[in-house]
């Protein structure tokens, strides 16, 4: 049963309700009662005269989604925090505070998250002026250290933080007793950029959100724009998108596998997985003309068609890759040291994973059978057959097995695309100036790292009023702290690696 | 030979002096290693190479590491190494000086042998035989004691309620 919050239908067919701030906690509690167990996305919006916070919630068992719109009172810009109901609200609320200046009453640790603590102003507000002074005179944030505590600073320059991630670990001996993650070193303002470029101009940017799964990012962006303008995409294009994104998933998982083993101290798999990843990059180079920032998926379809020669190459790659996968498994899967390092380490129980907004392989390895490709189908996925891999061990081993299985499934999908590629155009007729009607839409794809969503608000012009990126790495990183508790420093690195974060996407 | 003796004396007594005088306990520990190695050198000089090697293995290799471990686990920057009362300085210093004077003057009076008997060719084998024939009872007692010490140290150093 749905609690009655005054639902209406939005432009994207999602039930939505407008709530005053004081009714938000009870409304969300009622929704939780009704089975809504997942906070998908928490976005701040500046409507011009007032701020707004938008909550997307999901019922994973019954596949229902709703959106809640809360207008922030303009006298005192504060809304109740949801952190006591959804831990997933923690960082997103900090982000809204950081970028919009909206305060959340009851938030345990309301600090800036993406921008330095000394930053002045809130840059996603429409009244923010770029030529205002940006930062207060530099001050070093205090270490939360009592004299007898041992805090060790890991990152942002550290071999195993996978980029400019920084975490402060509180150690007792080598046991981790606490963790304070710090992010934002790679914040490049992609959400603000979307308000200054028109829809077509913005197309190359998603490549840079998560540069290891650029195709999947493109898919999320163009998908959202297409849904907003209600554009029909040719079937051939949808198939090409599956081809590109699934190959990209394999490439991304390969990189994860190599670096994860490197985190565990095994150096060779890294070089092996890069060999196969390189071949996929070459295929992408043929397909799109670029190795990293493809700009291949365009609004209305794909930039180029698949040539028969390239199809032949991809077809030849698949059996080769299966052999290599078997090789990896022979090297890694039964290795006693590997198993000792990954079994029972970094446990994330399913309810905790859902509550903290985890998604993708991290969520599935915690035993939650959820995959957007199957459960919120988009593109050509309803016409293709594939298995969703899950694991019930909740640990690092499960995450390894899930990603390995996903690589196999992605290959199966690629094979099906090659077999059943429909004839027709690879791109719809799209006007030179893309001008979707005013409206809101949330579109999400299953990226290699999890649910990559784009919450897009159009105002009828040729550029977005607001584009919010629901970054899976950002959300998954919130599960780091509970997983670390009580493990050793070496495990902390492995657990961090198992989440598969990408700082470009965490910080955006 | 006299040169070797001189170098070893320098190392041993210098090391011991360093242990006493160093203001940092970690430095003391490394000076202690120097003294241990010097003493091991004397053993080699005296033809007791087995004892010398054991001295290095146990003292420099194990005991010193234990010391360093203990220092690192219990160190507080504020802990003073010195800071005794002047009376104690005088008392202990005087007593030590007196003892040294007594020992050294007595040592000088006695006509000590200067000639080392030729070292036994099978020194190590002799030690082994001695250990297991005339000294077998003390040997076994020591081994039991070592076991007791091992268990005791483990129990003492164990954290309450958890293995460590």
């Amino acid at each position, binding site marked *: 049963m749905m609690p009655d919050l005054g639902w209406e239908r939005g432009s994207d067919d999602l039930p939505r309700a407008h709530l005053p701030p004081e009714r938000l906690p009870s409304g969300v509690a009622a929704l939780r009662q009704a089975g809504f167990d997942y906070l998908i996305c928490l976005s701040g919006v500046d409507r011009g005269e007032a701020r707004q916070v938008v909550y997307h919630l999901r019922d994973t068992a019954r596949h229902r989604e709703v959106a809640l719109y809360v207008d922030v009172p303009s006298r005192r810009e504060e809304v109740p925090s949801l952190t006591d109901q959804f831990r997933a609200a923690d960082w997103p609320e900090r982000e809204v505070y950081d970028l919009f200046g909206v305060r959340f009453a009851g938030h345990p640790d309301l600090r800036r998250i993406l921008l330095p603590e000394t930053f002045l102003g809130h840059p996603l507000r429409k009244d923010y002026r770029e030529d205002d002074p940006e930062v207060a005179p530099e001050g070093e944030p205090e270490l939360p250290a009592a004299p007898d505590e041992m805090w060790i600073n890991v990152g942002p320059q550290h071999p195993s933080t996978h980029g400019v991630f920084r975490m402060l670990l509180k150690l007792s001996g080598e046991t981790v007793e606490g963790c304070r993650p710090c992010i934002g070193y790679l914040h490049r303002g992609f959400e603000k950029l979307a308000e200054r470029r028109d829809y077509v101009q913005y197309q190359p940017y998603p490549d840079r959100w998560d540069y290891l799964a650029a195709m999947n990012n493109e898919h999320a962006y163009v998908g959202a724009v297409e849904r907003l303008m209600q554009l029909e995409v040719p079937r051939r294009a949808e198939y090409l998108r599956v081809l590109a994104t699934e190959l990209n998933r394999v490439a991304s998982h390969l990189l994860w596998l190599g670096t994860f083993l490197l985190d565990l101290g095994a150096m060779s798999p890294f070089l092996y997985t890069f060999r196969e990843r390189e071949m996929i990059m070459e295929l992408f180079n043929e397909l799109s003309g670029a190795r990293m920032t493809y700009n291949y998926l365009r609004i209305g379809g794909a930039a180029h068609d698949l040539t028969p020669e390239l199809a032949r190459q991809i077809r030849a790659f698949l059996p080769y890759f299966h052999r290599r996968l078997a090789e990896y498994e022979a090297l890694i899967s039964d290795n006693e040291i590997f198993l000792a390092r990954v079994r029972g380490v970094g446990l994330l129980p399913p309810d905790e994973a859902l509550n903290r907004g985890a998604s993708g392989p991290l969520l599935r390895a915690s035993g939650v059978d959820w995959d957007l490709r199957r459960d919120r189908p988009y593109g050509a996925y309803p016409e293709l057959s594939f298995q969703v891999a899950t694991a019930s061990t909740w640990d690092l081993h499960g995450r390894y097995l899930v990603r390995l299985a996903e690589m196999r499934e992605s290959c199966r999908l690629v094979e099906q695309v090659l077999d059943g590629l429909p004839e027709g155009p690879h791109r719809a007729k799209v006007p030179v100036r893309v001008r979707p009607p005013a409206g809101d839409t949330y579109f999400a794809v299953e990226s290699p790292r999890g649910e990559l969503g784009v919450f897009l608000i159009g105002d009828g012009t040729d550029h977005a009023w607001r584009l919010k990126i629901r970054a899976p790495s950002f959300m998954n990183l919130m599960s780091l702290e509970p997983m670390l508790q009580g493990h050793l420093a070496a495990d902390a690195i492995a657990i961090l690696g198992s989440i598969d974060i990408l700082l470009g996407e965490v910080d955006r | 030979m006299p040169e070797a003796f001189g170098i070893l004396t320098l190392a041993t007594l210098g090391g011991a002096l360093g242990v006493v005088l160093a203001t940092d306990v970690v430095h003391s520990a490394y000076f202690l290693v120097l003294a241990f190695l010097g003493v091991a050198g004397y053993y080699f000089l005296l033809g007791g190479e087995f004892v010398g090697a054991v001295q290095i293995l146990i003292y420099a290799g194990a005991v010193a590491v234990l010391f360093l471990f203990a220092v690192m686990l219990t160190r507080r920057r504020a802990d003073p190494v010195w800071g005794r009362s002047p009376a104690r300085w005088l008392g202990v210093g005087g007593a030590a000086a007196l003892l040294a004077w007594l020992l050294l003057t007595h*040592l000088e009076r006695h006509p000590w042998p200067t000639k080392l008997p030729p070292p036994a060719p099978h020194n190590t084998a002799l030690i082994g035989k001695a250990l297991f024939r005339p000294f077998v009872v003390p040997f076994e007692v020591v081994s039991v004691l070592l076991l007791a010490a091992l268990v005791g140290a483990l129990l003492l150093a164990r954290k309450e309620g958890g293995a460590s």
Partner: protein
Amino acid sequence: MPSLGDFLAVGAGLFVLGLFGALMKRTAVAVLMGIELMLNAANLNLVAFAAFSGRISGQIFALFVIALAAAEVAVGLAILLSLFRSRATVRMDDIDLLKG
């Protein structure tokens, strides 16, 4: 050629220095180090006597002393560690009571 007396003199020096350190240092670890120095002095004498008398028993004694010293250090430092855990100090003056 150094005589037996020279070795004994070094032993005496080592002993006196060890004694001085053991009595004057304030940290328990340093006190233990002084004691080790004294044990080494005794050992040096034992081995020197054994060598100059041409008999083996001095060396055997030295071996026993080394074994005992190792045990003593292990237990001593373990006691120190547990004291440190309960009192957070290794200063000798603060830990002169048998009962806490």
